[in-house]
């Protein structure tokens, strides 16, 4: 299994990001076992006082990317949205701690689940459903909530998240702990690096189940390039292979909010054109997939976690 990019000897030994990560993984995580969620969120508010100024460079990158993209974001709104992204990122991490507790799924507060009929109709077709989503802060909350109402979702995840701001110690010692934590949070998951990954996905689909794939995730061995909000972006071809070969349904899902109140929206099943070959299938259907993601990001720019990743 891949363990992420090699640690560059030129990277600093320790970064500010590593310090935040250590605080999060040890003292804050320990406290989260005992503290009420409201108190945990208070820690988040205190953390934000330090995180906002420390994220100045990151926010500048995000603002530049927002303005460069055809995102509909104005020059005056972009800095506010970047600050909101930092804030949402903090609460997202705290919600992960909430989710890592046993029985957490039942403590989630979903304030609205729209379009469940689309999901149920797609499941009724009997060939399984790929839930098409993007990297939005509340996606994990949504999947855990769906499991509590009888729709368990297998999440496909790339292990080893971004290492860009981590130092050598952070990469070696803290990132593996993050992976362990995320496994406790997501629970029902398969690693994209697992050699039996596609078989596990097919297994779930053939059982009539749900598989969540973040379409904006890391591109695999055979990526396709297509503009997302006017900027070329590489997309993985894996989802297209899975849909074509398994003939499953594809239902877009968007989940936004926090564990104290989030909403899920399912859109109607995508009407895809089945073709004889893989390349034709991608050529005909790629734009449909990208359009879904584009609308989700444009309507919820402060919820999308990948602004900093080209």
């Amino acid at each position: 299994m891949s363990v992420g990019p090699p640690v560059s000897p030129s990277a600093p030994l320790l970064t500010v990001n590593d310090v935040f990560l250590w605080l999060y993984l040890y003292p804050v995580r320990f406290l989260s076992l005992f503290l009420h969620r409201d108190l945990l969120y208070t820690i988040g508010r205190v953390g934000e006082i330090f995180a906002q100024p420390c994220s100045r460079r990151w926010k500048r990158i995000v603002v530049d990317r927002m303005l460069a993209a055809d995102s509909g974001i104005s020059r005056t709104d972009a800095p506010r949205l970047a600050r909101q992204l930092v804030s949402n990122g903090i609460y997202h991490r705290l919600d992960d701690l909430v989710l890592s507790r046993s029985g957490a799924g039942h403590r989630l507060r979903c304030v609205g689940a729209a379009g469940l009929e689309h999901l149920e109709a797609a499941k009724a077709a009997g060939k399984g459903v790929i839930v098409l989503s993007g990297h939005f802060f509340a996606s994990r909350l949504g999947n855990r909530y769906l499991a509590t109402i009888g729709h368990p979702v297998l999440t496909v995840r790339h292990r080893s998240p971004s290492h860009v701001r981590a130092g050598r110690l952070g990469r070696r010692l803290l990132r593996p702990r993050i992976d362990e934590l995320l496994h406790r949070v997501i629970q029902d998951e398969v690693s994209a690096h697992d050699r039996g990954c596609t078989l596990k996905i097919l297994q779930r689909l053939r059982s009539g189940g749900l598989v969540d794939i973040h379409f904006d995730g890391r591109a695999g061995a055979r990526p396709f390039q297509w503009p997302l909000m006017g900027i070329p972006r590489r997309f993985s071809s894996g989802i297209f292979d899975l849909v074509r070969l398994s003939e499953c349904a594809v239902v877009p899902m968007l989940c936004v909010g926090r564990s104290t109140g989030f909403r899920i929206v399912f859109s109607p099943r995508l009407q895809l054109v089945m073709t004889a070959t893989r390349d034709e299938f991608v050529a005909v259907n790629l734009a449909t997939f990208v359009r879904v993601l584009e609308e989700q990001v444009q309507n919820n720019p402060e919820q999308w976690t990948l602004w900093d990743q080209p």
Partner: protein
Amino acid sequence: MTADSCGSSPAPSPDTVNRIRRVFIEALRLNIHLENLAYADTLDEAAGLDSVAILEFVLALEKEFAVVIEPQFLQFDFLRDLSRLASYIEERAIPGRSPS
């Protein structure tokens, strides 16, 4: 029955094993002769490079033998064990179906 408990059947026929190996070569578009194929090693290698190839192999197997592999048998280690895979397919394949 689970993938772990399957495999107590009698040894599969060499014909079935060779058909599986042939389907494997064709599905993965390998440039290799049947007799030179190291099945398990090549499967490992293929899975490491492109796990969709494994999916294509499974679907090609199902088409070749007119079987549907049940979800609980869709496991990498089960596919890797050629003898167990061949026994499983022989138990479920439509009798008398000739190789395509």
